[in-house]
């Protein structure tokens, strides 16, 4: 049913939002852990709902999200993430940032519109080229995965998020940015701060240290890039400063912002995906046995988990002009959130929307990585990382199960889907480091016990 913007509908029995829709309904503990019933009601009753308390429109149907993603000329990305200056209440932090060589921050990639966007995207795509970088980094990813499993395999139990889902993408991003192994903890600190800053909610007592970390990150990136200018190397950092004939080189703020987006974009999303993925495996009867029999099903299963548990449940756009969504007018300048988590369960394309381990996602491609000019540039990477991680986990720990004595905990942050804690058990097995790296993608049948 379509809803007229100037004729608020009466509260339908199934609709969680009355006349004054706000995000509070989505922020209860239950809704944060399972927002899908609310999404479903919104898709039916108010597919384009104004959230009065936060001042944005929530777009919940697949077709509408798809339309917004496909029309960057109508929906700007300048505020795709938060636009708030997280440091506004801390003069001391602001003073520290004044010393920066890369401020004011540049709006690149996820925060840029055409034509500038194209320039950043071209550079990033060259630097993050799946064809080259993924191929070169695959052995490194396999080695990191094995080292992490070695960290807990003899114990017969572990907390999967802390010991695997969190460090894996952190170390892969470190490999991309050429951060030495000894500095991983520093990178983790930087990353945590940037996520808070992007969300616009850095606690006041952390503002000063966070501003210092911003400077440290900039110094690290700029020194690394200078090294690549002096000693060219065809890796990610080297590609960022490679001269492109006829193109002006990127400025320091632009380069730092691109590296920051790689750090933030590649990290938490992958952690959340891995947590959700393993939870699905452990809670779907027969699934692990099936995958051990036939690991070639893993890539398709990864797509289904991306759909049903999209790690990033939504992103923002700004309406460039008034737009009419089937009778609901979103005015020029208004902020919209495309809710991928809802679009990816739209009954128009996905039936009841529930996780289905044998669903064929070729029919309607999910929007977990977005779509169009801003589609996730690291998606090839993310897919490879996910498939390698799940394949290797099942090869090495085929009898993996939930540790029933310690309850699993979901993330409870709006817009994020993942696991906060996931305790697992398995038969203890010996470490494997020092052994030759496993083949990138095992297709051998019957990996159980391998």
């Amino acid at each position, binding site marked *: 049913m379509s809803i007229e913007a100037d004729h608020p509908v009466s509260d339908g029995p199934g609709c969680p939002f009355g006349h004054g829709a706000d995000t509070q309904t989505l922020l209860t503990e239950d809704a944060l852990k399972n927002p899908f019933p609310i999404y479903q009601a919104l898709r039916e009753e108010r597919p384009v709902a104004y959230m009065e308390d936060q001042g944005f429109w929530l777009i919940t149907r697949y077709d509408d999200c798809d339309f917004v993603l496909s029309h960057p000329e109508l929906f700007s990305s300048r505020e795709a993430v938060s636009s708030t200056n997280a440091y506004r209440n801390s003069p001391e932090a602001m003073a520290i940032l004044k010393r920066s060589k890369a401020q004011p921050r540049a709006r690149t990639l996820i925060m840029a519109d055409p034509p500038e966007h194209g320039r950043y995207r071209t550079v990033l*795509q060259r630097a993050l080229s*799946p064809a080259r970088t993924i191929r070169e980094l695959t052995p490194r990813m396999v080695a990191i995965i094995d080292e992490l499993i070695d960290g807990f395999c003899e114990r017969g139990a572990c907390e999967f998020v802390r010991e695997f889902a969190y460090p894996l993408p952190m170390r892969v991003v470190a490999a991309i940015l050429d951060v030495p192994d000894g500095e991983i903890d520093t990178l983790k600190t930087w990353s945590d701060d940037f996520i808070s800053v992007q969300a616009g909610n850095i606690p006041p007592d952390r503002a000063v240290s966070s501003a210092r970390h911003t400077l440290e990150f900039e110094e690290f990136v700029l020194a690394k890039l200078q090294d690549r200018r002096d000693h060219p190397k065809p890796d990610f950092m080297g590609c960022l400063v490679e001269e492109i004939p006829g193109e002006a080189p990127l400025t320091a703020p632009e380069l730092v912002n691109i590296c920051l987006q790689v750090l933030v974009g590649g990290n938490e999303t992958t952690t959340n995906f891995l947590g959700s993925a393993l939870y699905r495996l452990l809670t779907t009867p027969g699934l692990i046995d099936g995958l051990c029999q036939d690991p070639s099903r893993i890539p398709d299963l990864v797509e289904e988990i991306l759909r049903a548990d999209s790690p990033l449940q939504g992103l923002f756009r700004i309406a460039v002009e008034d737009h009419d969504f089937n009778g609901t007018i979103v005015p020029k300048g208004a902020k919209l959130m495309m809710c991928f988590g809802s679009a990816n369960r739209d009954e128009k394309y996905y039936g009841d929307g529930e996780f289905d381990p044998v669903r064929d996602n*070729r029919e309607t491609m999910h929007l977990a990585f977005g779509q*169009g000019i801003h589609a996730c540039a690291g*998606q*090839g990477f993310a897919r490879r990382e996910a498939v390698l991680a799940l394949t290797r986990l099942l090869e090495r720990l085929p009898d993996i199960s939930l540790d029933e004595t310690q309850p699993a905990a979901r993330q409870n942050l709006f817009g994020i889907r993942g696991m906060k804690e996931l305790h697992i058990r398995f038969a203890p097995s010996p470490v494997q480091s020092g052994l030759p790296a496993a083949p990138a993608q095992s297709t051998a049948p019957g990996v159980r016990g391998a």
Partner: protein
Amino acid sequence: MRIVVDEKLCELHGQCVFLAADLFEIIDDELVYKETLEPEQLERAQKAVKHCPQLAIRIVD
């Protein structure tokens, strides 16, 4: 109708292979694809066009 892939843009994400395996294939790190499109393949080809992360695929008459 024909499929045209801008090989300078293609980065082997493999989404086209996922969505239209009868039209696209990656062999030895190279994208191989059927140029001529049968009418019943059009819908799958259009999906590949839409979901190519590099926007490297086009369908021409």
